[in-house]
């Protein structure tokens, strides 16, 4: 259908003389093109570029969001953020979500991707579907469902643990200061696992079939083929996956806000919930937009610094895919 139209169009243009490529028509088309770009410039400029700039601007003010920012305080907000133990605690928790995603989720997803990539494995599409299912569920909703399952007073998990005698008294998974963060990290790995799995499967698809066959003919076993054929092909893509997984996990907000709101006693507080609390918490009498913006800017800079550590790899990958 589609190629049909294209072919017919090609026919038509072949019969008629090609029109002039430049001239007043081209100028008018350029004007139209700019008109077509206006919505993007407005929407992207207003909701992506402007906020990036404005965050910096706001962070120099002591401002509660009423009226325009007028109370210039210089670097005071930044000094306060950098000196706040609570901010650094939140930052390390955010970072913990990244570490869990990079060192637990990514390797496990790779192992399962290698397994599910085998065409001889029956039901592999069904397995993939099941593992992917948590990804499409709204984080806030399914997170609360799991919070109920983990409830110390009658929650299913504790009931099973008690019945089987694995524990003597209920574990307060999300209510204990030492267990809450590991529990949320586990839920986050469960929730994001499917995306990373799809990334790896896409990466494995790029390994040329004839290369694998050649390795098999040469008598390379599973491990040798993995080491000398699969991994070298997959490595450059792995760096992109690393970056995607890193960015996603570092910005974890929905799960924490919905399930623990950063508690108990800030044991699961992450930077986004920290910022949210200072800017939007309904129980707050006066929001601190300036301070919260400064926290956001510092967080952005720290993320940028960590991302830049991966830049040399990215650059190599970019130049390679460009050529």
């Amino acid at each position: 259908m589609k190629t049909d139209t294209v072919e017919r169009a090609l026919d038509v243009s072949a019969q008629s003389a090609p029109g002039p490529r430049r001239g007043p028509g081209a100028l008018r088309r350029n004007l139209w093109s700019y008109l077509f770009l206006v919505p993007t410039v407005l929407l992207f400029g207003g909701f992506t570029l402007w906020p990036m700039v404005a965050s910096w601007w706001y962070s120099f003010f002591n401002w509660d969001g009423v009226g325009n920012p007028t109370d210039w305080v210089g670097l005071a907000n930044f000094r306060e953020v950098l000196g706040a133990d609570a901010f650094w605690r939140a930052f390390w928790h955010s970072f913990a979500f990244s570490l869990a995603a990079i060192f637990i989720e990514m390797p496990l997803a790779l192992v399962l991707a290698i397994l599910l990539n085998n065409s001889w494995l029956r039901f592999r599409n069904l397995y993939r579907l099941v593992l992917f299912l948590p990804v499409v569920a709204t984080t806030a909703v399914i997170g609360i469902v799991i919070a109920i399952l983990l409830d110390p007073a009658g929650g299913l998990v504790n009931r099973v643990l008690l019945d089987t005698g694995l524990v003597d008294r209920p574990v307060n998974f999300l209510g204990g200061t030492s267990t809450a963060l590991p529990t949320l990290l586990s839920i986050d790995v469960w929730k994001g696992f499917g995306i990373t799995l799809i990334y790896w499967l896409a990466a494995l698809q790029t390994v040329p079939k004839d290369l694998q066959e050649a390795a098999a003919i040469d008598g390379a076993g599973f491990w040798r083929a993995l080491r000398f054929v699969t991994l070298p092909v997959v490595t450059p893509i792995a760096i992109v996956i690393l970056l995607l997984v890193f960015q996603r996990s570092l910005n974890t907000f929905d799960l924490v806000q919905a399930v623990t709101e950063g508690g108990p006693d800030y044991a699961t507080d992450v930077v986004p919930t920290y910022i949210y609390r200072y800017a939007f918490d309904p129980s707050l009498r006066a929001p601190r937009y300036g301070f919260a913006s400064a926290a956001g800017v510092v967080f952005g800079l720290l993320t940028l610094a960590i991302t830049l550590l991966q830049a040399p790899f990215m650059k190599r990958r970019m130049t390679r895919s460009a050529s």
Partner: protein
Amino acid sequence: MTGRWQLFARRNVWHLLLVPLCLAWIYPFVWMVAAAFKTPREMLIGGLSLLPDEATFENFRRAWTTAKFGTYTANTITFSVAVVMLVLLVASTAGYALARPRLPGKKLLVGVLIATMFIPHGYTIIPTFVLVNGLGLSNGLLGAALAQAGPALVVPVLLFMGFFSGIPKELEEAARMDGAGYLRTYWSVMLPLAKPVIGTVALLNFIGAWNAFFVPLVFTLGNPDLRTLGVGMYGFYGQDTTDWTGLAAAACIGVLPIVVVFLFLQRTFVEGIAGAVKN
């Protein structure tokens, strides 16, 4: 013979690992559906059976009306459709314009778009909130939809640009010969060709908007009647942590529609996600 058996065993032993893993994996969903049909009394007494003694719709009724999940469903649909429409319209026009290789300023714009993908934004929700307030849109879902759609534009613009660039220039010239202007060529000739891209972009953004939490949360703080399902669930749990069967029913209302959408269109969705890695 034994060799073949060994191979068979070696290949199928994986199911012993995969089946329990997958059952545990989707257990929260299974429990959620089962609990939604149980009476609160049965939930309290416990019992690990998934099948309710007597199935009841009372939980759904309570979630739908008392907890306002009917309203939240309507809000979520409005919000998601608005985001998808905004993204499709804005990204396809931009992609069409940027598909012209000689458009002055094209490189700059594309460069800025791509650069913002890799620069961490820190947290930009505060200026976004201030801006929407300034536009006088803080009391409707349109403001939230704008805030959700704006940052989601980059990938769709690049997808549309790539697709339109791949269409032979002759097609456009033929349309012009037939007397179609710029707008008509875009709307009646090019856009219908772009159905695959439209499908991918629409699906990814619909699921993204349905599952969005931060933006709808911030923009409905002053107006609980505008909450979406995710925010509504958070509010419900915050008010009443003990109504487990009601919460389970609410969770079903929030999760099952999008799971069904996904099951029908999973190939498009999975390929859309995989595309992030391949390109």
